[in-house]
């Protein structure tokens, strides 16, 4: 479904993602967890074909990313892709559902379920950050794609609506690539595979997620770690042996920098 082979991605001379490789099979659910600035959104842009890798290749549904056209089986909540016309949210739903081939009634039901009826008459850029990401989540999910790419779908979302989105994702049939820095949501996705992304490098996969959350972080060398990650010039090790911190005690993976200082 998604096959990424040794890609380097960046802006100008700067390389953000270095030698990234991983794949996602049909109906597989994957979380990529990384702190702010680790390259998560850059990875989304590369997968969507908005940023050309400097090296390596990306294939989606067996086709090279450069050759993809009219492939409606993939959708994302990445907000900039929903700026084709400066219209209100209601019209934007109509436009994108029409372009992606989704069900407008389903999209409206999601809007109602999330209590977003009032935003239908407003433009996307006029919404709060939380409302905007909720609308983009709906725009992505409404076409019921086989492959859903969600970049920070819970960012700035209030707990009640976050619960509803979590519910939707738990029952989702297709493959999901969920990219976030929020460790607190991972317990809702016990069957997902987990990758870490730190400073442009990807680590993983670790599966199932339900077991990974109980592992410990070791700041010093440990025997047979699951994974060793380089963060800020230091190495941290993940192991099921009791260590310095329990992974699930971090609400936000960005906080890992605090314990390393």
């Amino acid at each position, binding site marked *: 479904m998604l096959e990424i082979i040794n890609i380097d991605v960046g802006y100008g001379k700067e390389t953000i993602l270095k030698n990234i490789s991983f794949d996602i099979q049909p109906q597989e659910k994957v979380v990529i967890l990384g702190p702010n600035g680790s390259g998560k959104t850059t990875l989304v842009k590369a997968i969507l074909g908005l940023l050309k890798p400097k090296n390596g290749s990306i294939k989606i549904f067996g086709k090279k990313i450069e050759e993809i056209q009219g492939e409606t089986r993939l959708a994302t909540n990445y907000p*900039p892709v929903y700026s084709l016309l400066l219209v209100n949210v209601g019209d934007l739903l109509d436009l994108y559902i029409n*372009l992606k081939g989704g069900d407008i009634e389903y999209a409206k039901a999601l809007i109602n379920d999330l209590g977003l009826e009032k935003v239908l008459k407003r433009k996307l850029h006029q919404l709060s950050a939380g409302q905007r990401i909720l609308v983009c989540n709906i725009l992505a999910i409404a076409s019921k794609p086989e492959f859903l790419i969600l970049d920070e779908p819970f960012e700035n979302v209030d707990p009640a609506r976050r619960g509803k989105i979590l519910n939707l994702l738990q029952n989702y049939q297709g493959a999901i690539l969920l990219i976030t820095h929020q460790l607190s949501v991972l317990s809702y996705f016990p069957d997902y595979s987990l990758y870490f992304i730190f400073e442009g490098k990807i680590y993983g996969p670790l599966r199932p997620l339900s077991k990974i959350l109980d592992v410990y972080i070791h700041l010093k060398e440990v025997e047979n770690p699951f994974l060793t990650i380089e963060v800020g010039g230091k190495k941290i090790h993940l192991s099921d042996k009791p260590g310095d911190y329990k992974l699930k005690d971090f609400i936000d993976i960005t906080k890992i920098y605090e314990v390393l200082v």
Partner: protein
Amino acid sequence: MGAYLFSRGIPKEFVDSYRFKIGYTASWYGVAGTFSLAALSVSLCYYFLFITSSLPYIVKYGRVSLFSFFSQIILGTFLYSSFLSAILMIFTYGIFSRAFSTNLSPAMPVTAFLVIGMGGVFYYLLAAAIIFILILIKKVKSVRLVSFFPMMISYALVYLQVFGVADKTIIYTSPFNNIYTLTAYAYLGKPIPFKWGEVIREFQLLHPLNSVIILLVWMIILFLMNIYLMRNIKEIPIEEFRQL
């Protein structure tokens, strides 16, 4: 301005001639039409900067091809420009007829709608090409200046023609001048002269069919260029074209 300010300098022997008055009005309609479309192209440039994420996305992951996207937007631009030409026509007719106390109605209003519609499409394609080239050469920050180029060039070349000092090559080949020529022709109802002073003598006329062909050639070149450039578009964050 054309009706009440510039008309004060017209020699008295011309002011009383209907032929002169309709030619003068047609010329102003051509100028207003061309410059309105040129002004529109400035904002169109910005539109293309805002869709550098969404356009590649819907082409890759939506049920729309680049060709059909451009074709539909072109149709929309054509209709919008035609609507604009109708408003301009009403104002031109009203203001100039009142200023000269003569009924100066347009001879071929439908042709005028079609011509300005075509002009709108040309400026749309030009704005798209400018932005796609800026993205390609990584000079997006220059957009504030470069987006005014179509307007500046239109002003310079069309006024050269209006004041009778433009070279024949420019009048024949420049798309801006051909839009002006066709718009003025539609209002006047007959081919306009190379120099407006010759309107009385009907000397050396500009054939509208030539202008249509030249304009179409320019549009086809720009259309194909845009389709090619679009394939190499990269996402531009809004912040990137801020100057300060």
